[in-house]
């Protein structure tokens, strides 16, 4: 009678970083023209990273609305807090509020630039903290059109780059660059990224699957500036061209300078999550 089985509630495992970094502030104007498109693409990525540094910490709420081809909707509600770690990947904590069967489930991520990320999942039904694998890249995040790797920190080291062209995007002028994931576990062969020249904010990403087909398009809108420096978007829509499904991710209650420190991102802290 003693055999034991797993978790009572469905749960998420193996999620990669969810923090979205692409939306960064800028102080320097457009890039100088360079002959080598690889070097130029890399320079854009490094500049964008540098401009995003120094935010310290933030907390936010996220709402995801998942739509299928028939227009049927499903909602996800989560909270997150992020701590900047100078010289390394950030620490992230996500707490799920809806759907209610996963309420209280929490995901702790210590992201790294070079080594594998470390991830722990808190399963409230068993009061269990479980170390999970961070190797899931291409899987769907909470059934949405965002894959784990789309939510994750696009660490500069995890791609190779190529500058493609310049073109107008809305009232702005954007650079279009290609980035190719280094990780063979990625679900993408390449991505095309539209960034405005002024602030290096990401406005659009085209994702190409392993068969080189145009799989998904991310559209980013409603940028707001925080602490007079950092640009963060409020609305991100991912459309899957193969399935016709889409997901809209809305950020609310973004707050900086909460005096968070390492103690807010520990395994013992996970057990206190509500």
């Amino acid at each position, binding site marked *: 009678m003693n055999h034991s089985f797993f978790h009572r509630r469905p749960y998420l495992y193996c999620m990669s970083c969810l923090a979205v970094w692409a939306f960064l502030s800028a102080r320097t104007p457009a890039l100088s023209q360079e002959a080598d498109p690889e070097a130029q693409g890399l320079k854009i990525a490094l500049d964008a990273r540098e401009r995003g540094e120094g935010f310290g910490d933030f907390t936010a709420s996220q709402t995801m609305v998942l739509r299928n081809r028939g227009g049927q909707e499903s909602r996800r509600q989560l909270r997150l807090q992020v701590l900047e770690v100078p010289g390394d990947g950030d620490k992230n904590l996500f707490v799920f509020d809806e759907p209610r069967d996963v309420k209280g489930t929490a995901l702790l991520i210590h992201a790294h630039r070079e080594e594998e990320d*470390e991830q722990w999942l808190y399963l409230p039904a068993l009061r269990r903290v479980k170390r999970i694998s961070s190797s899931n890249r291409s899987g769907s995040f909470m059934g949405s059109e965002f894959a784990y790797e789309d939510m994750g920190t696009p660490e500069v080291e995890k791609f190779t780059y190529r500058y493609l062209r310049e073109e107008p995007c809305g009232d702005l002028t954007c650079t279009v660059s290609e980035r190719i994931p280094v990780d063979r576990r990625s679900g993408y062969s390449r991505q095309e990224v539209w960034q405005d020249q002024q602030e290096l904010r990401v406005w659009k990403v085209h994702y190409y699957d392993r068969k080189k087909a145009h799989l998904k398009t991310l559209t980013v809108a409603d940028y707001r500036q925080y602490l007079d420096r950092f640009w963060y978007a409020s609305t991100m829509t991912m459309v899957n061209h193969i399935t016709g499904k889409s997901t809209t991710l809305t950020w609310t209650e973004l707050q900086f300078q909460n005096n968070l420190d390492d103690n807010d991102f520990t395994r013992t802290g996970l057990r206190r999550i509500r």
Partner: protein
Amino acid sequence: MRWGAALVHIVLVSIWVALFGVAPGSSAPPIDYDFSGRLSLEGRWHPQSGAFPEQSRHASGVLAEPEFHLEDARGRSFSLTPFFRYDSADPLRTHADLREAYLLVFGQTGSGEWELRLGVDRVFWGVAESRHLVDIVNQTDLIEHPDEEEKLGQPMAHLTWSADWGVVEVFGLPYHRGRTFPGPGGRLRYSLVVDDDNPLYESRANQWHFDVAARYSHSLGPLDIGASVFDGTSREPHLQPELNSGGVPFLRPYYGQIRQLGLDAQLTLDAWLLKLEAIQRSGARNIRGVEQNYGALVSGFEYTFYSVWGSAHDLSLLGEWNYDGRGGNATNAFDNDVFVATRWAPNDVQGTELLAGIMFDATRSSQVVSLEFNRRITDRWSLSVESIAFPRVEESDILHETRRDSFFSFSLIYNF
């Protein structure tokens, strides 16, 4: 419903005032209030009639587990989680418990942190899936589920220090909870009924023996490791046959004083999870009622194929070996058993998950098959289907008396 919520609010606020001497709202720190939980309608069906005439083939039931939580701006909190179960077939399975009622405070010490939990709480230790070997703080609510994952609330003082050198936890456990067992009408029981109302204790303090436990855990890159010690009243009873005043035989639980050293470790390498739990226990009686020191372990792996065949589906394979140094004298069915399972998660909007496993005895031919299926129906309703089957149980196996008790259960759960 509105009145109920108001009443609950008044009770919780009163507790808060009693604990902290500050009325929420009256002073600066704002109070966060959270009310959540689950209600479940359940049915259990046994394809075979029971081995004993009192047993029925069907049981229906209701479960309620509301959670109340109060928290102030400094993070101090009070949590209350009662549990209720109604069962149509076994009056003993109709039971209530206080799963949690604790006060939590925490703060900084140097570069680290301390945390104190006072009251009734649940604690989980371990990494394995087929069995939770090192997990010993809470008593098993066995009548609730045979998988030994359901736990009764345990009164405790639980102090934690954590810093970059790891986490140290100390537990003071002033009161022992007795294990719950099915009554005469319940399935999944022994041929003799366990009378859990009148247990025997080795300690003269009976259930009031002050048990202590401690655990050190740390995370070093891909390795998560924990070492634990428990000294006090065994959570696992020895069941000794006796005759009641009417001359009817029954089983009386005996709780001895034991000491357990535990080790749990997990190595996380890419999509591999390599797991080990091991214990060394002294002072416990074996199946023959003789004290025997012993060691036991469960060790294995979990490997996940993500996005199999270009789909959104994840497929995990699990394998674990259970070993108990007492062999045929072990008090459980895990003396030398192998567990193999697969978990399938299509990563759909409904969060569908299917888990199928089989535990087979490496020395006998006994097998236990398990199936668990979970799926959301809406954002609030979800469905759970479960089956445990005993296709083959040898007469010498400890599970032999439950061989006719294979079941399917269906739960319709409302999460709020």
